[in-house]
Every structure is written in C-alpha cells, then in structure tokens.
C-alpha cells in the first residue's frame, strides 16, 4: 500500500470478495489454500516500518475511523423534530454486554440540556421529616454502590406491532443500553430526609422529576423506591454523558426507560401517584377493546439475534458461523436462550457467555456450522420466574394490534443463502 494509492477501496473490496468466494468454494474441512502469497504478509507495511501516533494524540479517544459506521442512528419519520426524539444503539455491531456511553441510545423530551455539577441541586421533599437540598458534592459523600443494569425504552420494538417495519436490529431493538452505574441508593437518600412523617409506607409513592423543560415527572411506588432504585452519577466508570442526564440520573432497574429520569432534580414522597403525562398519555398500553393498561413498569423477558441480522449479514459463506445476540428481563435474571433456524419449528439451546445477572443484559452464542441454506433465525429467552418470551402472534392474541409499548415478541430474521438478512414475520 503505497501512499499515493489512497483511493484503494475498490481493489480492497474486490480482494475481500475474492477471499469470500474462495472460502465458500473450499472444502469444508481444514483451512483453505491461498493461490498467491499475501502482500500484507510478504511486503513490509508502512505501519510496521514507520512510527505511530504519540501519546496524547487524542486526549479522550473515540473509536478508530474504520469503525465510524458503529454509531447511533435515528429514524427521521418517527418524530416531528430531532429534539423530542429517539435514536438507536448499534447493537448489531457490538459484542459483550456493556454498552459504551458514546453509542448508547438517546431519548429526550425537550433536548439534552447542559447542566454543570456546580449548578446541580437535588431536592427531596413531600412527606419527609426534613425536606433537603443536596448539591452534587453532597451526593458524593453518601455511601456508594455499583451495579450493571439495562435500560430499555418501553417503545423498543414498538414500530413492529402491526408488522415487520424496520430492517435492522439497531432499529427494531436498539432502544436499549447496559451500563455499570455508580451512585447512591434512593433508599439512603430517603432515609437521610427521614420517612417517619410518611407513616405507613405501603400506599406511599415517590414522584421524580428532571431539570429539563420536559421535567418528565414519573410516580414510583415506595416499595420499588426502597428496593433497588439508584441515584447515579457515573456510568461505565466515568461521568454520565450529557445525553444520558449529566450530572445525575435515576436508575430504576428492570423498569421502563422513561422512569429513569435524567438530570433528576426533585424527589417527592407522596400519598398517591401524580398520573403525569408520561404515565397516562404515554407509556400506557391500549388493548383491543379500547381499555388501557397503566403502570406497566417492568420490562418482560426479551431477546434478539444481533448477528447475523440485516445490518450484519454473513459475509463468509458457509462453514463455521457464530450466531449471537442479547437477552434480558426486568423481572430477574435470564436462565436460558434457545435459537431456532427454521422459524420456530425446532430449537437449540444457546450458550450464555456468563450466567444471567439480575436486570442486566446477557450475551448468548450459538456456534454453528452453516450449510449455506436459507434460515429463519429466532431467539427465545427464559427468565428465573419461568417466563418464556412469547411470539408476536401470542402477544397480539392477548393485546390486539394497537399497542405501542412493551413489545417483547420473538424476532425473525430471514437469512438468505447469500448471507443477507431481512426482518420478516413468519406464520
């Protein structure tokens, strides 16, 4: 690769194509033989000869330019503007379970605001013994906890209710991320303000709101508030990103993402739910008879094959193939994931990269030998309550066609013999 040969992508692509064809034509046993020596090996390459970048070339690193397609994407026709809008995590291109903050999906109701730590205030009021105002520095002096949790928007896969619409795991299942949070438990903060005033806690609620213009107020039953809710200020070891609520957000494990109030500024102990816009107009589920479910907080068990998938086709022809995906449940831990290659007629149990963890993403793999024939790939998650991820038909049977949220159906990718994949529905 000489320097003046910068427009080398066509020849490189041709080379890759050749390699794929060679792979496909080769015997399925043992490694293929090369025709000619590979210049990448036989010739000294510039990177092996010259020097690379010094330290500090980039003070805070982004992925190398060749990964520039692994980014959040949005679907413009979904929303009127891109401020009250949503984009999607490129789950088709990620592996493991931790989502890097820089490509973790965003959902704002009034845009991502700029709030300095110095300007940050958290108020705890309502039925508490002492209403408090805490600064960011105060928060850092409470005992801290670390937990990995997934955050899934209740509308994830929502565009697929009526039929297969979007062609890519990023678009169908990308309203999810999974991070390690550091923060203070909400219980600790409520106890600091004192709950004696609240009396019997059984029928009490907390109302939480953000500092942005949407405020995104949500009511959370006291039982959950005292159980595992976290007031978090770090994710994956570093400060939260602006778009995820810098400097402080709420983490509500296993429950719909809308409750994970960003830029959280106020927590009020109350004797009833507020029934705010986000818990009436939105985030409620209309059934076939026109009656709607409210307070559908928990995210049920769900999984998706992330590769192969429409944005991650098989490029290597038949032979060894890694089928991989993600599974999660808001009601405990994933215990098993099955994969079907024939649209649900037969199933094989996949390998979990690690035992399922509570309210966190679980990575699964099915290491297989692909014969090059068409596949209808599906995955089916089970959790420790014994719940089995339903098919779309099963969901529709109970809920009808008019729901938006909480679509946790089994997803099908039609993988053709050329390796390309498409989002389909099967009988």
């Amino acid at each position, binding site marked *: 690769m000489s320097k003046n040969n910068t427009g080398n992508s066509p020849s490189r692509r041709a080379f890759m194509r050749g390699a794929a064809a060679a792979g496909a034509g080769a015997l399925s046993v043992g490694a293929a033989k090369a025709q000619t020596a590979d210049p990448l090996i036989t010739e000294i390459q510039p990177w092996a000869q010259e020097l690379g970048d010094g330290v500090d070339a980039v003070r805070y690193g982004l992925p190398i330019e060749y990964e520039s397609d692994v980014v959040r994407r949005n679907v413009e026709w979904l929303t009127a503007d891109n401020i009250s809008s949503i984009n999607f995590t490129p789950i088709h291109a990620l592996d493991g379970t931790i989502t890097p903050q820089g490509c973790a999906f965003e959902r704002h109701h009034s845009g991502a605001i700029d709030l300095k730590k110095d300007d940050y205030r958290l108020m705890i009021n309502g039925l508490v013994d002492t209403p408090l105002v805490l600064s960011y520095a105060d928060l850092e002096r409470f005992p801290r906890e670390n937990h990995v949790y997934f955050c899934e928007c209740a509308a994830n896969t929502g565009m697929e209710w009526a039929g297969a619409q979007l062609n890519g795991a990023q678009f169908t299942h990308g309203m999810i991320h999974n991070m390690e949070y550091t923060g203070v438990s909400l219980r600790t903060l409520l106890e*600091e303000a004192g709950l004696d005033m609240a009396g019997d806690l059984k029928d009490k609620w907390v109302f939480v709101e953000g500092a942005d213009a949407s405020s995104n107020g949500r009511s959370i039953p006291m039982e959950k508030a005292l159980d595992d809710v976290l007031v978090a200020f770090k994710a994956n070891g570093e400060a939260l990103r602006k778009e995820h609520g810098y400097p402080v957000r709420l983490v509500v494990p296993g429950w719909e993402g809308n409750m994970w109030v960003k830029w959280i500024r106020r927590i009020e102990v109350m004797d009833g739910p507020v029934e705010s816009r986000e818990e009436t107009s939105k985030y409620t589920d209309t059934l076939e008879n026109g009656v709607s479910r409210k307070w559908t907080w928990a995210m049920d068990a769900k999984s998706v094959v992330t590769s192969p998938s429409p944005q991650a086709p098989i490029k290597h022809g038949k032979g060894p193939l890694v089928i991989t995906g993600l599974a999660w449940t808001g009601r405990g831990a994933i215990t098993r994931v099955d994969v079907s290659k024939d649209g649900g007629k037969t199933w094989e149990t996949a390998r979990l990269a690690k035992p399922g963890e509570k309210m966190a993403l679980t990575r699964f793999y099915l290491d297989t030998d692909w014969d090059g024939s068409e596949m209808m790939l599906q995955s089916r998650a089970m959790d420790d309550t014994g719940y089995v991820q339903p098919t779309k038909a099963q969901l529709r049977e109970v809920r009808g066609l008019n729901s938006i949220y909480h679509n946790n159906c089994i997803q099908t990718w039609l993988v053709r013999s050329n390796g390309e994949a498409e989002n389909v529905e099967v009988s």
Partner: protein
Amino acid sequence: MSKFLKSAAVIAAISMISGPAMAEKLGLGRVALPEEIAAWDGEIQPNGIGLPIGSGDALVGEEIFADQCAACHGDFAEGIDNWPKLAGGADTLDRDDPLKTVGSYWPHLSTAFDYIKRSMPYGNAGTLSDDEVYAIVAYILYSNDLIEDDYVLSNETFLDVELPNAKGFIVDNRAEAEYAIWSGEPCMEDCKDDAKVTMRAMVLDVTPEEEKPEVVETAAPVTEAAAEVVEEVAVAAFDPALAEAGKKVFKKCKSCHQLGDGAKNRSGPILTAVVGKAAGAVDGFKYSKPMKAAAGDGLIWTAAELDAFLKKPKAYMKGTKMGFSGLKKEEDRVAIIEYLKSFGE
C-alpha cells in the same frame, strides 16, 4: 407490597450483602426553604391537589393558543404534521389506529394543566401564567367538544369536568393475563408444521439508508496550490458542500423555523433570506421586546451577528424568546449560515 415491611434488622442484614449499610443519618445537605419548595413543587394530582387559584375560558384560551401553540398543534388543536394532536379521536380507542388525544384518551384533566404549565410551549416552557393555563386547558376542552366556549374553568370548577376516558384504564394485569400462559418448559422440536414468511420489512422500505461517508474522494484530486485557492474563494463565494453540512444542522431549528417555498411562521419566524436582512422584520411574526428593540436599533443579520446570536441566543440577546440553547461548535454555525444563504441573501 410487602418487601419493605420486614423488620429493620432483616433489611439491615440484607443490605450488608449488596451494599453499604446506613447506620444513621449523615447530616448531609441542607434544609430546603419553603420558597424553594414552592418554586419546584408544582405537580397537580388528579384530585385537584396542587391547583393554583385562577381561571380562564376558551375564548381567551383560543387567542393564547393561536399565538403560542398553534404553530405545532394546529389552530384547533388538531395537530400539524407529526406534532402531537390534542383534539379529536373520540370513540376511536377500540378501533384500528386509535387517535389518542387529551379529549379521547387522557383520564385526568389535572394532567393537562400539570404538563402544559411545566413543559409547554415547547422551547419556552414554564412561561405561562396560571390564568393563561386555565384558559388554554379550557380551549383544548372546547376543541374536543367537551365544554362550551363561555365555560369558566377555574380551581373551583376544575373537578366538575370529567374526561370521557376517565374509566378507561386498568392497573397492569400481565401477571394474570399473560405470565401464567407464557411460562413453563417451551417446545423444542416439531413445534409447528410449517413456518412461512408472511410479511417482509423490505416491502415497506421505511428503514433509513446507511449514511455513506462523505464523498470527498470523488472530487478531482487537488494539488496543494489549488487547495489554497479554493480556500480563499470559499471565504467569499457560496460553498455548496458547507451548505449541505448546514442542512443537517438545521434539523435542530426545524421544530420552530421554516425555510423556502411555502414557508410559514411557526413558533419561530420564517428564515428565508435572513442572511443580510434586518432583524425582527418578518411579517406577521410576534417578536419579543428585546428583538423588537434590536430591530429598532437597526440590527442586521450579517454572518458575524448570526454567528454570535446562534452561539448562545440568550446570552447574545437577553430575553429573546428563541428557546434554543445555541450551537456551540463553530463549524456548525459556519455551516448553517451557509445553508441559510442558499435560501437567498
């Protein structure tokens, strides 16, 4: 709900395992002052708790709505394009594609007051007076044929209005309706006779295209000397590539501004031919006082003034009603100004 009713000792023991145990209060933070609580604690409950004293009717509301809301939600609250519809949809909830609005879907009127008071108008939240909110809510009710235009909505009459779908909600019943049927050992073999594709996403073709990396490479190779010339010219002449980049940045403005043929004033004025033009001069748009004052002082939207304004609108012009935090990146500002130029100078 019973988990937290365990004895304190049990809870303490459990919390030792997963995290730090709190012995007693740490005495952190400070006591919230009554006026601070009053400033932030504004939510309104379905039973009317939290409603401020005030009143308004649909006739007054119509005017405020036309002025501050109709750009997005339509003159009759029927919604424009993809912006939320606030009226209509009666009796559609059990049909295909129900239309869910304040009138057809919302269970409590308190929610409308609560939400509008805190979060609307979009881009200028929290600026409506209590009387204005009562009047707007009355107008939305009127647009939904739920009250007459002379009905005075106030903290006293508020609870008299029952929304049609007040009884349309049930508490999450997935445990009974679903979990029992979808549990247990699933089928592994011969689970169905046949599996056929019944629907394909390709048919709809609504997936966004893969964003191709900028096609700079297709341009003829430029020598260093040529590059310098190009750069120099770019200072003065219109730069289509830059304008193209600006088009992307304009997505941030689209919620409030329109450009080009058929453009209308939305919550912000039409921006056609704004570059080089006098500020505050679009017909039929109600500018803020400071914008009018600046216009009176002869402010011209030169590239430099636009750059300063767009960087931090509220810092540049205290009291402007442009509810936008600004474009921090210089490259974004340069690009958008170039894009605006493509709509006339």
